[in-house]
């Protein structure tokens, strides 16, 4: 860190229509928010100075997020609550900040530290029940691994490692909501929708995902998981 810079961590949501944004689109939108918010952001050194910021793990296009994170460096200390207020005024609807606090410069980057994503997947299907979905998912998990084809490459995910907690399916009216806690790896992470469709296929059930949300992004430590803020 350059002397006199302050690392601010902001928790934000990626909601509603804006779930269709890509990670790059979100990061650019947040940088623009910072510029509009009239805050003393720090800039990088070098030939093409940029606003100094770093982002947490990417969310795919179409997946919403309730607690996503980014770090932005300030060249001057301003109370976090005040910055949060300025951000709220400058943020497009759907990317609102939730919380902000200064964090130590010595912490590892968000992208390295955040290894756990908690997801909720909403499924709809005629005569589909939560019990059927639960059984189908348990069946896939019992297989121990899952092969995923993406962009012509095959990846094998070890489910014991990828799913540190149990998968749970529940009924809410017409919807079935499934919650997943997924461990993200440096070589990419298992997508919850992949697991859902593999499970439905293998159990010969028909259903469609209507919404996927990462409800929490967590840091895994000895003895448990915690939020970055």
């Amino acid at each position, binding site marked *: 860190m350059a002397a006199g810079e302050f690392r601010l961590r902001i928790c934000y949501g990626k909601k*509603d*229509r*804006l779930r*269709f*944004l*890509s990670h*790059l*689109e*979100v990061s*650019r*939108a947040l*940088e*623009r*928010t*910072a*510029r*509009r918010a*009239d805050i003393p952001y720090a*800039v*990088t050194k070098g*030939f*093409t*100075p*940029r*606003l100094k910021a770093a982002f947490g793990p990417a969310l795919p*296009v*179409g997946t919403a997020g309730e607690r996503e994170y980014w770090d932005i460096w300030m060249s001057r200390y301003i109370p976090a609550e005040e910055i949060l207020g300025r951000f709220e005024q*400058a943020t*497009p*609807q*759907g990317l609102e900040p939730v919380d902000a606090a200064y964090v130590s410069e010595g912490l590892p980057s968000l992208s390295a530290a955040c290894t756990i994503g908690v997801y909720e997947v909403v499924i709809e299907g005629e005569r589909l029940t939560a019990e059927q979905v639960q059984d189908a998912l348990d069946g896939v998990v019992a297989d121990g691994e899952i092969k995923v084809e993406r962009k012509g490459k095959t990846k094998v995910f070890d489910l014991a490692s990828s799913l540190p907690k149990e998968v749970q399916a529940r009924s809410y009216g017409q919807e079935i909501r499934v919650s997943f806690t997924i461990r993200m790896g440096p070589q990419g992470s298992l997508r919850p929708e992949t697991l859902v469709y593999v499970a439905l296929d293998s159990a010969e059930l028909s259903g469609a995902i209507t919404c996927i949300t990462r409800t929490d992004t967590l840091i895994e430590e000895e003895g448990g998981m915690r939020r970055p803020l």
Partner: protein
Amino acid sequence: MTDSLWGQVERLLPGVERPARYIDAEWGAIRKPECDYRAVLLYPDTYEVGMANQALTILYERLNSIDGVAAERAFVPWVDMADAMRAAGVPLWGLESFEPVRTADMFGITLPYELTHSNILEALDLAGIPLRATERTNEHPLVIGGGPATFNPEPIAPFFDALLIGEGEEAVTEIVAAHRQARDAGSTREGILRALAQVLGVYVPSLYETSQGAGGRIVVTEAGEGVSATVEKRVVPDIGTYPTPECPVVPFMDVVHDRATTEVLRGCTRGCRFCQAGMIYRPVRERTADDVVRDALASLRCTGHNEISLSSLSTTDHSQIEEILRRLANRLDGTATTVSLPSLRADALSVDMARIVARGRSRGLTLAPEAGSQRLRDVINKNVTEEDLISTVEHASDAGWHRVKLYFMIGLPTETDDDIRGIGSLVGKVVAAMRERVSPDRRGSVRVSVSVATLVPKSHTPFQWEPQLPLAEVERKQVVLRESMPRKGVELSWHDSDVSFLEGLFARGGRELADVIENAWHSGARFDAWGERFDLGRWRDAFAAAGIDPDEQAAQCLQPGEQLPWSHISCGVSEKYLLDERDKATAAETTPDCSFEACTGCDACQDLDVDIVLGGERRGSR
């Protein structure tokens, strides 16, 4: 009003590329749900191309500033989305309200250039609006066009209820007022169109008689009763009256020209004889340095962009450009914000300016000598000498640039193979001059990109009567050029000559081409401006079905004095001036720029009752 289409659109998004094109919700988007007049403004290409368009930004702001008027944006959905919409029965909608375009009062369409014509039909069809104006009733929105390609509106005229010729800042307000009044008075469709035709600059194609003119082109022969025989373009006398929109919509997507923009001046009177923009945007009108700096900073603050572009046809000609650049550089210091200039003239002054904005960053420099010999540069009135060009690239090399991009054209009137070879030898001299100036260990990094286009003779230019080069001849000249081009350090690229061929046909055609456009669209033409989608064969079939030989039409030499398809459209520049310029071209005589020197008699200021507006005295190479 129907229920919002969002729910239906949302279901299509997981299956299409780049859904951010369709979701709205950007910073700066204006929503006015309680309005009695709704206009949808369409750019006939994808979101990421259209969002770079300044006219759309300006008109969106102007219309939304009117009480009771809501203006929304629309773009042409990419092929995957359009197919999904048709399959699901979802019509084209206005982005801000997710209401169908079909239920709007006005559907305003920009005509940026000829290759987007098929997309206009695609948009009308997706909206569920009949393609031809004659098939529409008061149940449909008023379909009105504007933009540079309206200066020869005829090939596309049957698809429009009305077209605005010229600048829209003031005219749109009058158009909406006339339409609202006629609508509220319960006028018939024809009554509404007649009311619109009274607005200066508005052309209503259905109110004019036509007949077949020379070379099979359909020309306008007579204006209907109470309608002006010549439609004169609208022009804003002082663009300072309308500050650049401060808070335009900020896209989420990575769009073309993803930055804030301030228009520093309008018009260019350098007088290049091939250039339509140089004729139709006359006269030159500058914003003052104070206004430019104010607008640029305000726009950066409101949008959060990290780059501001100072746009115009010839930004470095602005009389106060150095002051503007210095003031912006000072104000933006330490904010990681850059200033960009769209194009540069080949002179030392321009390089100095580029250096101010580049601040040590090694972006390439782009220069446009356009022709390879001095004689031919005089023919086209491109007042750049070989010495200018060489000293400019030397200066640029001294300042740290190792990459230069050069634009040239082939197919110019009077052009010989020697002129073509002249491009090769000029490029060779540029490469040698740059190598000479950079340190020996960096000579290998000197790169000159050469981009070559084929002349497309355009209406309202001194070359409007000239034939287009046949495609076989274009190919032969490309071989001559390739053989004369030095290899080392040079990257040569071409504009697709098939695309230029079609562009030229629509640039000078008449209403007979409307059937061609419709035929081509029916057989799948859309996004013709996208290389991977363009298919000349499909267009040739569309011409054949309409009984027109495109090669013959392109090769026609039009005759001065005869009625042309665009003769009833005036940009203020007189035919006499164009003919004088044509004669001077043949004699390789040049014409100076009236914003630097005395009036050259194009008649635009007199015809349009306007004058040149400068922030100070212009200086520089001339």
